[in-house]
C-alpha cells in the first residue's frame, strides 16, 4: 500500500485528494487520460472514459503507462479487472486508420483486418464507405470523414486520423503583445498559452476555461498560430462585436480585415464573425447561409460558447473535418446531454482548468456565492399551493416578496456595479420600476443594448436589469455584483454563465458577489439546488441565508 493521493474506484472514477503532497504531480500524470469531472474543495473527481483513453492513445500515451500511473499514485490496490479494461479499451484505438492515399484520396486502412470486416458490415456505417480497394483498405469520400469518425467511435473502434488538416488560405495574423496604437504591452497568461499549445498539438478540440478567464485571447492566439483565414461562430451580434473589438486591440488585424456576418450585415473577409442564429435561419426549409462555410478556404473555425452549438451546426461541422476547429466554452454541460457530439465532431477536450485554480492565480475575481431564501407571504403560499404544476415555477420564481430583498441586496453594495438577472420579462419590468434601473431584454435593439452596456461600463448606470440575453458573452468587466432572481428551470450552465458575468478580475482585486434569490419551500429551491451543482462541483460553496438577515439589521445576540 503506497500512501498515494489517488483512489481508483471500480466505476472508473478517480478520486484525487488534493491536500496530499503528491496531488499536484498526480494531477499532471493523470490529466492526459482522465477527465476532470468535479473539483470541489477537498477531493477532485476524474473519470476514465473510453474517449479519454483513446485521446491519450492519440497523444502517444500507451496502456502500460496509464496502468503504471494508476498503480503508482493509487493509495489502495487497483482492481485487476479495471486494469484489464483500461488496457483493452486503449488497445481498440488505431486498429483502423484514416489516411491520405496518394492515388485514391481518403481511405480507411486496417491494421487488423477482422476489425475492418466487422465495421464494414455494420449498418451504422451504411453509405459512408466507398469501394473496397484491397483487403485492408476501403475508400472514403472526404465529406464523410466526420460522420465516419463519429460512427466508428460509437462502434468502439475509433480510427486514428492521419489524414491531417488543410492549411487553408494563408493570412498574416500576429498577436500584438507589445501593445497596439499606444496600448499597454501585455502577454498571454500561462494557462492561455498552455491551452493554445494543447489545442495546436492536437489539431482540433475544445478548450474549457472559466468565464472571464480570457477565452477570446485563446482564440486570437490560435489564429496567430494558424496564420490563416478564420471563421468565428458566436452566439449573438453583441458578442460578435466584442470579439471584433478584442481582435483589433490584441492582434495585428485591422478593422478592414474583420467581417461581420449577421442579420444586419453580410460581410465576408479574411476573418469573419458569424452568429449561430444567421447560420441556422431557414428560408423555405433550406438553410440559406450555408455557403459561408465554403465561401473561403478557411484555415480555422472557432466556435465560441460551444456548449450552445445548435443541432444543425453539428451537421455542418461534420463536413468540416479537414479544417482545424477550436471550441471555446466555460461549461461543457449540455442539458440535452450531447457533450459527446461536441467531442466527436469538434474534437476532444484539449484543455481544462479548475475554476478555483485560475481564481487562486488571480486571473478571475474571487466570488462569494450566496443563496438568499425568501419566505413567501401567506397569500403567495396559498396561490402557489393551488397553482397548476406547470405554473408553479413561474409563481415561485416571480414572487413579489423577492423585490424588497433585491433592493436590500443592491443597497448593500452602494459602490458596486450591480446586474440583476432574471428569466421572466414581467418580473424584470417590475424590478426595473422598483429599482429605477434600465432593462436589457430580447426586444432591445442592438444599438440600445450597446448604449446601455457602454453606460454601465462607464459607471453612468449603476444597476442594470437584464434578461436571458445577458447569459452569455457580454463583457461587463465592472460588474461586481450579480443578483439572480429567476432562471431557466434547473439549467446548470446558465448559473455558471451568470456567475461568469462578475468574474472579470477587478482593478483593485476586490471580491465579486453572486446572489441568487429563491423562494423557500417551493420548486424554486429545488431548481436552485440543481443549478448550483456545476459551480459547487467547481468548488464554489454557496452560503445560504434567510431573507430576514438581508432585510433587517441582525438581531442582537444575547450571550
Amino acid at each position, binding site marked *: 500500500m503506497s500512501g498515494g493521493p489517488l483512489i481508483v474506484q471500480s466505476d472508473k*472514477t478517480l478520486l484525487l485528494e488534493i491536500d496530499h503532497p503528491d496531488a499536484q504531480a498526480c494531477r499532471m500524470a493523470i490529466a492526459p487520460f482522465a477527465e476532470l469531472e468535479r473539483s470541489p474543495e477537498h477531493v477532485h473527481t476524474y473519470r476514465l472514459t473510453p474517449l479519454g483513453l483513446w485521446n491519450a492513445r492519440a497523444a502517444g500515451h500507451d496502456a502500460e503507462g496509464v496502468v503504471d500511473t494508476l498503480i503508482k499514485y493509487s*493509495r489502495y*490496490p487497483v482492481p485487476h479487472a479495471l486494469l484489464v479494461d483500461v488496457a483493452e479499451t486503449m488497445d481498440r484505438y488505431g486498429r483502423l486508420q484514416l489516411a491520405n492515399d496518394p492515388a485514391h484520396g481518403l481511405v480507411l486502412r486496417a491494421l487488423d483486418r477482422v476489425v475492418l470486416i466487422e465495421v464494414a458490415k455494420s449498418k451504422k456505417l451504411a453509405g459512408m464507405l466507398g469501394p473496397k480497394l484491397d483487403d485492408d483498405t476501403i475508400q472514403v469520400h472526404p465529406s464523410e470523414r466526420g460522420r465516419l469518425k463519429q460512427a466508428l467511435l460509437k462502434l468502439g473502434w475509433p480510427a486514428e486520423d492521419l489524414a491531417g488538416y488543410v492549411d487553408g488560405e494563408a493570412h498574416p495574423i500576429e498577436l500584438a503583445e507589445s501593445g497596439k496604437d499606444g496600448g499597454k504591452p501585455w502577454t498571454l497568461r500561462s494557462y492561455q498559452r498552455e491551452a493554445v499549445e494543447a489545442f495546436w498539438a492536437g489539431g482540433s478540440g475544445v478548450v474549457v476555461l472559466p468565464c472571464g478567464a480570457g477565452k477570446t485571447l485563446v482564440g486570437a492566439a490560435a489564429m496567430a498560430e494558424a496564420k490563416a483565414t478564420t471563421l468565428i461562430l458566436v452566439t449573438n451580434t453583441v458578442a460578435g462585436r466584442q470579439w471584433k473589438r478584442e481582435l483589433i486591440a490584441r492582434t495585428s488585424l485591422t478593422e478592414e480585415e474583420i467581417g461581420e456576418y449577421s442579420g444586419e450585415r453580410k460581410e465576408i473577409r479574411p476573418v469573419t464573425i458569424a452568429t449561430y442564429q444567421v447560420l441556422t435561419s431557414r428560408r423555405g426549409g433550406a438553410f440559406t447561409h450555408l455557403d459561408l462555410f465554403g465561401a473561403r478556404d478557411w484555415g480555422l473555425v472557432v466556435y465560441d460558447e460551444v456548449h450552445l452549438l445548435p443541432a444543425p451546426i453539428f451537421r455542418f461541422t461534420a463536413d468540416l473535418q479537414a479544417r482545424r476547429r477550436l471550441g471555446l466554452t466555460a461549461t461543457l454541460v449540455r442539458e440535452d446531454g450531447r457533450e459527446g457530439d461536441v467531442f466527436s465532431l469538434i474534437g476532444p477536450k484539449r484543455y481544462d482548468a479548475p475554476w478555483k485554480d485560475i481564481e487562486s492565480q488571480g486571473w478571475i475575481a474571487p466570488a462569494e456565492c450566496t443563496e438568499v431564501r425568501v419566505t413567501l407571504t401567506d397569500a403567495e403560499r396559498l396561490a402557489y399551493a393551488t397553482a397548476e404544476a406547470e405554473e408553479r415555477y413561474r409563481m415561485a420564481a416571480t414572487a413579489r416578496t423577492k423585490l424588497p430583498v433585491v433592493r436590500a441586496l443592491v443597497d448593500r453594495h452602494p459602490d458596486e456595479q450591480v446586474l440583476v438577472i432574471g428569466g421572466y420579462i414581467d418580473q424584470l419590468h417590475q424590478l426595473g420600476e422598483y429599482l429605477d434601473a434600465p432593462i436589457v431584454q430580447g426586444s432591445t435593439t442592438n444599438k440600445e443594448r450597446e448604449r446601455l452596456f457602454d453606460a454601465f461600463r462607464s459607471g453612468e448606470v449603476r444597476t442594470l436589469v437584464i434578461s436571458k440575453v445577458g447569459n452569455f458573452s457580454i463583457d461587463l468587466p465592472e460588474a461586481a455584483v450579480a443578483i439572480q432572481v429567476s432562471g431557466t428551470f434547473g439549467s446548470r450552465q446558465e448559473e455558471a454563465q451568470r456567475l461568469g458575468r462578475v468574474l472579470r478580475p477587478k482593478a483593485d482585486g476586490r471580491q465579486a458577489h453572486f446572489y441568487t434569490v429563491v423562494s423557500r419551500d417551493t420548486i424554486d429551491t429545488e431548481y436552485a439546488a440543481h443549478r448550483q451543482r456545476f459551480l459547487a462541483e467547481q468548488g464554489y460553496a454557496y452560503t445560504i441565508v434567510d431573507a430576514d438577515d438581508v432585510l433587517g439589521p441582525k438581531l442582537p445576540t444575547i450571550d
Partner: protein
Amino acid sequence: MTTSLADHLRTLPDESLAALLQLRPDLVVPVPADVSALAIRAQSRVSVARALDGLDQFTLLILDAARLTRDPEGGGTTTESILAMATAGPHPPAPTTVRGAVNKLRALFLLYGPEHDLHVVGGVDEVSPYPAGLGRPAAELDPRAAAVCADPAKLRRTLLAAPPSARAILDRLAAGPPVGTVPPGALDAPATGEEDVLPPDLVNGGAATGSPIRWLVEHRLLVRMSAVKGGGTVELPREVALLLRRDSGPLGPLRTSPPLVSSPPREAKAVDSAGAGQTMEVVRHTEALLEALAAEPAPVLRSGGVGVRDLRRLARGLGLDDPTTALIFEVAYAAGLLGELDLTGTVTARYGGDQQILPTGGYEVWRAASLAQRWEQLARAWLTMTRQVGLVGQRDDRDRPISVLSAEAERAGAPAARRSVLAVLADLAPATAPTPDEVLELLDWRAPRRARGREAAHREVLAEAAQLGVTGLGALTSYGRLLLAELTDADERGDDPLGLYSDAESGEPSTAVRALDALLPAPVDHFLVQADLTVVVPGPPDPALAGELDVVAEHESAGGASVHRVTTASVRRALDAGYSADDLHALFRRRSRTPVPQGLTYLVDDVARKHGGLRVGSAGGYVRSDDEALLTEVQADKRLEALAFRRLAPTVLITPYQVNRMLTALRDAGYAPVPEDAGGAAVLARPKTRRAPARVPVTSRSLDPLAAPRLPMPRLLGVVEQIRRGEAAARAARRAPAVVRGGTAQTGPAPAHTHSDALAVLQQAVRDKALVWVGYVDAHGATASRLVRPVSIGAGYLRAEDERTEMLHTFALHRITAAVLED
C-alpha cells in the same frame, strides 16, 4: 497372464503390496477377497485408466515404449529394449530418467516382472489402443499393405513419391492418433495425379483436384478399416508411421520435463496488489448481489435454477456482465450465503415458481466478518464447488439454455480441474504469469489423459481465478498460494471428523486471511465533506460508519473509497430513522476531517424544520370545544382519568377510547356532550330502545277468518281460462300417439321408430303442411309431446306452429325422439 500377475503379487512382501494400494487406492474399494481378485482388479479397464490418468506425458510414452517392444511370443519386454527405443530419437532423454519412469510404472504395477522380463498389465491395451499414437503393424491390417511395408526401400520410394497433399495427411496421422475419418466421396474421386480421367469442366473452367486419400489407399500407405458408403475410416500402418517419425524418434518428440514458461515474471507486489484490488471488488459485488436478492428474491424456475431474465436484472443492477454475475451468484450460493425459501400457499403470478432464492442467515455472519475473511469464504466455496459456471448461458444437449444454479451446470470434476490448474500456477516461481496457452500446455504434459478435452473448462478456471482475485495479472497471488496450501494440507491430513484442525472452528484467521489483510486497506472511521454535498470516505468504511452513512446519504460510487451524497431525501430518511438535527450535525462534525460546509448545515436544519410539520396518528375519539377553560376542566377531571385525554390543540382533546364509552363517561361526570359524525354534523342521539321485528296487528285481519274471500270478476275469469288451458293440454296429451309419448312408449314393444324416420315424417309434413305429433326431450331431460304444423327444417332446427297457442316453436332436431302424422 492374469495368473502370472497374481503369482507375482503373491510373492511380494506386505510393504510392497501396501505401497501399491497406497498408490492406487481404488483397488481396495471394496477390499478384494484374495490376491487373485486384487490382480484381476488391478488389470481391469477402470482401474488401469485411473492409474494412467495420473501419469505425465513422458511416463505414458515410456509405457508405450514398453508396449511397442513386447516380444510377440512371450509378451515380455526388458528395460534395455525400452531404453533403446526411448533414446532412439535425436534428443535422447537421460537413461536415468527413463529408468525412473520405468520404476514408477512398476511401482504402479502397470509393468510387472523382473527387469529382463517385464510385462504390461492387460488393461492398458484396452484403455489406450494406439501406443505412442502408432497404428497396428501392417501385417495385422492388410496383407497387401504388409507386402509394401516388407520392402523398406520400396516403401521409402513410395513415400517420396507421395504428392504434397497426401504427404500432409500422412504427417498428421503419423503424429497420432493413426486413425482418420474419410470424408464421403473421397475414395470415389480419382486419385491425385489422375485427374485426367475426368472430363474437362467447360462451364466453370479450372482444373480438377484429385483425392489424396485415394492415392494413399491405392498405394497401400493407408489401410481402409471400415467402409461406410463413400467414406469410412483409414488407419496408418505402424511401419509407415515409424518411417515418417525417423527424425523425432519412434515415440515422437519426448519431453522429460514440463515445458518452460516464457512470459517474464511480474513484480510480486504488483500481482498481490492487483489481486487484492480484485478481492475487494468481488466481495463488494457479492454483497451488492445479496442485497439485491434480499430486496427482490429471484424465483426458482420449475426446471431448477434462476431464469436468465432475473440474472440480467441482477447484472444490470450490479453493472456487471452476465457471466461474472453468474459466477458471483454460484459462488455465493456455494458459500451458503444464498438459499431457497419455500413459498407455501402463495400464488405468484411470476413463472408460477413456488421457491425463491434469497440470502440466508449465514449472510449476516459473513457480512460482519473482515474483508479478507469474507473473501476467503468465497474463495474456498469456489475451489470446492462442483459447478462449472462457464456453462451458464450456453445450451444443453436439448438446446435449452443452461441457467444459474441449474442441475445442468453440475460437474463433479470441477474442483479437480480448479486444483490442477492452480497447482500448475503454484508450482511455478512466485509472480510468474504464464499465458493461458502455456498453462494448458503444462497441464497437457502433467496429465495428458486428464487435460485432453477439458481445455475450455481449464480456460474458464483461469478466468474465474482472475475474477475472484485468486490470481492477479495472470499470476497466483501470495495469499492465493497460501489458501491452496491450506486446502492441500487439509486434504493430506485426510479425514478430520472432529474438526480438530479446522481453522474456521478455532476462530483464528488462517494464514491466507492474514496475508490478504496486510494487503487490504485498513478501515477508516472518518470522511471528507465537500460543498457540493458529497461525502468521501477515503477507504473502506468501518461497519459503524458504513451504517451511519447508509442512513444519512445516498451511495454514489464505490471501490477503494466510497462517495456518498447528502440529499434532502437522505436527510429526511435519517430523521425518519430517529436522528435529530442535532444528532446529524454532531455526526458530521465528529466524522468529518474537513470543516462542515454551511450548505450542509443549512440543508439539515431546513429539512429538520419541515420534518414532522404534519403529524399523523390515530385516536378513538375526540372532544372539542370553543371553551378552552371547559376543556381544561375536562382534562383535569379526576373521574375522567381513565379516558387518558390528550390535548391536541387548545380546543381539542383526544382519547384512545371509543366515542360511546367517552360519551357515557362524560355524561356520568355531569357534562353535556353532543356527538358528531365524520362530517362534523351533530348526531342526535335519542336513547335507542330495543324492539322486536314488526308484526301485523290483529285488528287488520277480517272478522271471520274462516269466511271465503270474495273474488272480483276479472280474477275469476282468469282462473277459468287457466283451467281451460290445462284441460286442453291434458286432452292433447292424451291424444298424442304412444310412440310420441316417450315415457310410456318404452314400456311396451315400441316400434323401432328411429330418428331418421322421424325426420322423414317431418319433411313430408313440411311439404304437405300437415299436423304432426312431435315427441321431444326438453332441456331438463323430460319427455314431452306437442301437436304442431311444421314450417321449415334447417340448420338443425325444426320450426313449427302450434295451432292452439298460435306460437312458433323451434325444436332442436337432435332432441326430437319421434314424429307421427296426425290422422
